[in-house]
């Protein structure tokens, strides 16, 4: 539809696929550019409400089922929140197994995003005149591309580690506040080592096209310019040709809760990064703003928040997603944020760029770093030690569990009275990244990043918008939950 006075066109983009879950984006377009974007998370299930009145341990069964792609992340957040309630910690060896399970899920998600969700757009006919198109069609055509097939097989084999330690993926119940339910043997350890070795070989041969350590030693973006090997090289070539380093630029505010708490500390440290300046993470400053959400009740910190859906779906709201803000500001979260906040020099440089290219390169950098961390973690597991400690939960209290899912910061906050959950609030990574506007009308990160995206004449589902949205790797089922 066109408003003649301002010459602004509105486009409704959806169903937006190759993201996890359902997504609708409304775009205002003028002079061939997006001037405003509105992200609608169109599905509400109400997990927070379901959990009320249940015993706290039931969160371990129910919350993983919020999301089939970040299931272990939800498990971990719930287990940590329960341990927090009890004032306990996982037994060290159990914690290592739990973190290994979590790393496998995150790595598998990154692999899937790159190969199955993000890259297939470059095989579209719209790019038929580009020098890289023929190779991209062979490698990345949706469903059938050779890279997709190889990635799916490598992922299935990597997930054997979850089969062995966690029974199945998704939706394991193996991760508990005191540790894990299965004590792996020395034989299990060498079997997992074989799976990890096979996965490294795949990454080095196919994805990165070089020893992982070569990538990990890079410190500047300029060093990526000569990278020609692996599917990473193909992505960088496409990215250069399409100027993806200037596409979908965010607002340079990044947040990470810190990933993989082990007895030796979090493997990737928590923090924030604002315009290149590092700061401490202060979760007490988080408020969920409901001004543009179909939610009722006051804005609140998640420990005091509610989930009361607005059945009337009022006109001035446009999403079931709440808008989390840290000290009043929106923050981008995800692999790029996590690696930059952890201080990897290449990720720091990419975070300053803050583009489609930066998000995707940050994710592949993390894929390589996490492979190394998985190998290190496996070596630290001692099969002779116990993997579970008994944790007794108090009848009353509160618990917080902060983790990093593949897509970024995930938090569970809950309260218990007389052995029953009275409040359970969850903020997922895509709640941050795809939040609607807040009370000050400040857009969420993806809404801001979409402004300026080109819209070609005749496009009803603009390709540039697709690249930008998918560069965030949204998980819509987690977003509202």
């Amino acid at each position, binding site marked *: 539809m066109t408003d003649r006075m301002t010459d602004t066109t509105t486009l409704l983009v959806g169903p937006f696929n190759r993201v996890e879950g359902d997504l*609708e984006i409304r775009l205002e377009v003028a002079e061939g550019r997006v001037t405003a974007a509105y992200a609608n998370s169109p599905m509400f299930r109400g997990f927070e409400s379901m959990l009320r009145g249940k015993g706290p341990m039931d969160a371990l069964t129910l919350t993983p089922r919020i999301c089939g792609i970040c299931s272990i992340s939800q498990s971990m957040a719930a287990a940590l929140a329960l341990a927090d309630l009890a004032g306990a910690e996982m037994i060290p060896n159990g914690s290592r197994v739990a973190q290994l399970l979590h790393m496998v899920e995150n790595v598998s998600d990154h692999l899937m995003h790159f190969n199955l969700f993000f890259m297939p757009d470059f095989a579209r006919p719209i790019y038929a005149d580009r020098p890289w198109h023929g190779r991209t069609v062979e490698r990345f055509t949706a469903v059938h591309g050779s890279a997709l097939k190889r990635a799916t097989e490598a992922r299935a084999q990597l997930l054997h580690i979850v089969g062995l330690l966690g029974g199945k993926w998704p939706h394991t119940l193996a991760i508990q506040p005191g540790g894990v339910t299965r004590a792996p043997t020395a034989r299990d350890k060498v079997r997992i080592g074989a799976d990890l070795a096979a996965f490294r070989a795949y990454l080095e041969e196919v994805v990165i096209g070089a020893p992982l350590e070569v990538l990990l030693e890079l410190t500047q973006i300029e060093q990526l310019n000569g990278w020609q090997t692996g599917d990473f090289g193909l992505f960088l070539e496409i990215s250069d040709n399409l100027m993806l380093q200037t596409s979908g630029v965010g607002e340079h505010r990044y947040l990470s809760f810190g990933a993989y708490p082990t007895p030796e500390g979090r493997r990737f440290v928590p923090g924030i990064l604002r315009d290149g300046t590092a700061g401490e993470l202060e979760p007490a400053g988080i408020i969920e703003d409901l001004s543009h959400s179909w939610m009722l009740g006051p804005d609140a910190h998640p420990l005091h928040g509610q989930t009361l859906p607005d*059945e009337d779906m009022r006109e001035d709201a446009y999403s079931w997603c709440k808008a989390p803000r840290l000290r009043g500001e929106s923050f981008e979260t995800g692999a790029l944020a996590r690696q930059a906040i952890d201080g990897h020099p290449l990720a720091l440089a990419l975070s300053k760029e803050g583009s489609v290219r930066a998000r995707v390169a940050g994710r592949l950098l993390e894929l390589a770093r996490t492979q190394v961390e998985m190998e290190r973690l496996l070596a630290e597991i001692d099969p002779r030690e116990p993997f579970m400690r008994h944790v007794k939960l108090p009848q009353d209290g509160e618990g917080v569990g902060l983790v990093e899912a593949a897509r970024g910061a995930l938090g569970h906050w809950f309260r218990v009275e007389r052995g029953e959950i009275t409040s359970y609030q969850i903020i997922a990574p895509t709640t941050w990244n795809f939040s609607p506007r807040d009370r000050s009308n400040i857009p969420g990160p993806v809404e801001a990043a979409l402004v300026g995206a080109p819209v070609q004449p005749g496009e009803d589902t603009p390709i540039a918008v697709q690249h930008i949205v998918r560069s965030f790797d949204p998980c819509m089922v987690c977003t509202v939950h």
Partner: protein
Amino acid sequence: MNILWLQSAGCGGCTMSLLCAESPSLIDLFHGAGLEFLWHPSLSEATGAEVRRLLDAIEAGEQQLDILCVEGAIARGPRGTGRYHMLAGTGRSMLDWVESLAPLARHVVAVGTCATYGGVTSAGDNPSDAAGLQYEGSHAGAVLPATFRDKAGLPVINISGCPVHPDWVTETLMLLAAGALGPEDLDQYARPRFFADNLVHHACTKNEFYEYKASAEELSQMGCMMEHLGCIGTQAVGDCNIRLWNGEGSCTRAGYPCINCTAPEFEEPGHGFTETPKFAGIPVGLPTDMPKAWFMALASLSKRATPRRVAENAVADRVIVPPSVKSRKHD
């Protein structure tokens, strides 16, 4: 046969599990069986307006639809409008789309316990008023009436599981493509019998502990989890311990109980998922088809006959007493 796959009010985990199919992988298997996706939300190229045109063409009868797969429960709220899940870009609820498309498909397949019976999406106070396609919990008749039959005379085929095993989906689809799945091949909740005729108990590695009622007292111990830890593998349908998951896994092999995720209403057991409800110290739920008196008699007898090895290992997190090895007579 072509497949239109819709993701409704669920977690997407059944697709994630499906992509774990191995030997062969999903796409090779589809190719060999003459199956192809008309559209799948996680996999297909088409997005936005391209998808809307496809859906319109199916509704207009211009595009044939062989198999409609729905993953996730159907949100019927608020107040029966289905607006808790509007299919993005279409201005219509998923409830409306499913009601419209199901009668047009040759077969309708519900994938996962949310799509079959409501599942976890309908847990607690069921905030979104979610139901399965043809069942609301164990009650037949939901989004589609109990009398619904597809063009081949089948009800909605219920591949339950939270998540589904990838092979349950691929084998059901292959049977449909081969015209080899009839009404008699489905159980009373319309689950394919090729997996539902088994119990999770079958081939459970804790069976020796079960035989002697040598029970684990806490998670991470090796004993049988029926007596104290909520395991209902002796009543739950599924071949989980026969075909295994993600290589060599299963819930019970990973040391946590079977929570009967293939069953209607598993999401509301009425007690903690990892606790066994008891009456006078005796578990309330008994193994399927087992007369109670016989169970009690056998249990008390076998408990007394428990070998020391089994008793000690049951409450340990690893084998602490290995099986004794008999020496040969001439040694």
